[in-house]
């Protein structure tokens, strides 16, 4: 293959690969993005439609004295001090899960309940997930220093 054909050959495979990659990326971005909502945003946007197909994340504080253990399930309210959403979770909770703590839960919103497949709380008492901090700031209930 002399340099002239080499250039053609290289261009063709680059175009093919990049085209394929773009296609894959666009498809994956459409299906696999997980949006984040605060309880207020969630209810405002999807409160009437009841069901969302895709996985979403919801963040806020664990409402005080709302945590109940029912066999393997944990049920609690998550709040942004404006609205609350009921969260049902059947996995094991992270170490720093406690009332008043900022957490993020990932799962599906169905019949006004949030069925979490994962609950994330960071391993530091002072830590607040930034999305939660933003949401609380928006509602003027943020008390801590900025992180």
């Amino acid at each position: 293959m002399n340099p002239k054909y080499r250039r053609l050959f290289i261009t063709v495979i680059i175009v093919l690969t990049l085209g394929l990659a773009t296609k894959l990326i666009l498809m994956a971005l459409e299906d696999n993005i997980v949006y984040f909502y605060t309880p207020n945003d969630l209810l405002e946007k999807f409160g009437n439609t009841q069901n969302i197909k895709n996985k979403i994340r919801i963040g806020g504080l664990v409402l005080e004295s709302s945590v109940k253990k029912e066999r393997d399930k944990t049920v609690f309210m998550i709040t942004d001090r404006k609205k609350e959403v009921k969260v049902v979770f059947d996995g094991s909770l992270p170490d720093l899960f406690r009332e008043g703590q900022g957490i993020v839960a990932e799962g599906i919103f169905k019949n006004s309940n949030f069925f979490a497949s994962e609950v994330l709380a960071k391993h530091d008492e002072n830590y607040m997930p930034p999305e939660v901090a933003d949401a609380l700031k928006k509602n003027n209930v943020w008390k801590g220093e900025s992180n």
Partner: protein
Amino acid sequence: MVPELGHILLIITFSIAAMQCVYWLYNLKHATSDVILFLQKGSLINFLFIFLSFVILTFSFITSDFSLLIVSNNSHTLKPLIYKISGVWGNHEGSLLLWVLILSAFTFFVSFNTAINSRLLASIIGVQTLILSLFLAFILFTSNPFERVDVLPLDGRGLNPLLQDPGLALHPPMLYIGYVGLSVSFSFAVAALITGEINKDWARQMRPWITVAWCALTIGIALGSWWAYYELGWGGWWFWDPVENASFMPWLISTALIHCVRILEKKLIFINWTILLSILAFSFSLLGTFIVRSGLLTSVHAFASDPSRGVFILIILGISIGVPLILYTIKSSSFNEDKSSFDIVSKESAILINNLFLTTATLTVLIGTLYPLFLDAINGNKVSIGPAYYNATFAPIMAPVVLLMAIAPFLSWKKNIDKNFTKKIMFLSIVTFLGGILLHLMEEKSVFALMCGSLSIWLFTGVITDLISKIREAKVKFQNINQFFFFISKINLGIHVAHIGVAIFLAGVTGEQFYKSEYNERKKVGDIISIGTKSLKFDKIENIDGPNYNSLMATFTLYENNKFVSKLRPEKRFYPNEKSQTTEAAILSSFWGDTYLVLGEGDNETGWSLRIYNNPLVSWIWGGACFMAVGGILSIIQNSSRFRNV
């Protein structure tokens, strides 16, 4: 007074480095041996002074000198010695000092690489020193590690308990050696752009530096993943977390670079591409360092940041990535390439495709990492991108790379001369097909499991086939150690070992991703849990005091086929100083797989929640990474001038 000495040493080093840069630029056109000597001596002094300064900081941590801000914020008198030392780089300022220490060490070592022609060498040292002075300025103006506190605290605030771990003590230094090591190939590339001098020797001199950086990066990433596996208690080893991606992208690019530079060593083609990759590799390192540290992305790695640092970081990134790219667009067309040709079926083509796919794979990771930031900036939507995205983009792009990896080593340069080429491919296909059927019969899983497992078998067979045929061709007898090295150099053992590492890694991934099983139980003391052929007996649960934590420790006995195997002791630790809790999983590792046990919350009345994972072949993941790194080291040895020309 001692910490001030550390600070002063940094100021002196900054002045020397800045002076060196001016001197280098002034003498850009005539790099005499005097110029080189001056730059060499400067590099030596820089290295020594930064080293001393680093020793002073470490000493402050060991002696718990809480008059220093970062010591009081990140250390505690009760912390074990090793974590007092690793606390030095467990914070923003200290980690930057480690960064420049490694940079000055690399600069010093490369400055004595006199096999490089003097004009190139002067510019290489010059570029290295320029980066060094930028970072020293960053440290001195925004992140002084020797800053004092106003009021002396009684004790320090301690280090995040998650980071108090031996694996993690070593993870940042290894990663930094990898990141910073890539600065050398970057300097080679920029020096080539400045001087316009590039030849096969340039590639030959550059390759060992890339390989060193690549090995360190491999080990560093593997250590981080291993730590995540046993410390976070989620049973996973890779989460496609932005911070992991930040270290993975330079790895992918430098992998491409290692392969690509081999073509340039043979003949002068793809010069521009090699230079571009060298610049990109280090740019990704810088991006990695800062993406992690800036707090732009949240994780355990992020240290609090202030806006002045952000601006400074942008300036450094702008200079170190922007200027070389501008130089590149101006100069890249001026290099003369060889006019030789090669067949479609040849080593050149194979490496070309390898490079294309590796960079495309990097692109998918980059988009996955930055897209959430982009979306947030555009319309304030908060999104996260998880493993599903990467499984749909990264995995299908990497699969052809593995397919090619098995057969590319059969090929020769320029054109295929292996008469058995098709026979070998037939053999590989048959073995893989049979292996796939066996895998399917053993335990029926998804089609992806089958594909992943088959790729591992394919690659494994390919490497072994190639190794055997290379040994046959070599016909070297060896009685002493030198001849042994001639031998491994002739058969190119490094390549085989590194590629086998990928096959082992893939086998581990197949086991962990597709064949693992998870059990969630709530059990009381005395209960027995059965998991497959194994069973676990809950013996007791008790409170135990550690050096700087209190632990709730459960004891289990693991039986397999009713025979005693081992005791397992998962813990929940509470660190009073840091007011935080960690989960210590109990892991029994063996060659064929791990039993992974996590203690959750609960009490003696209602029982304790337990999570148990069976992770087949999981340790092969890190074993594979070790093989890759060993392969890299072997390739440095076998390509050293002593053994090459035989």
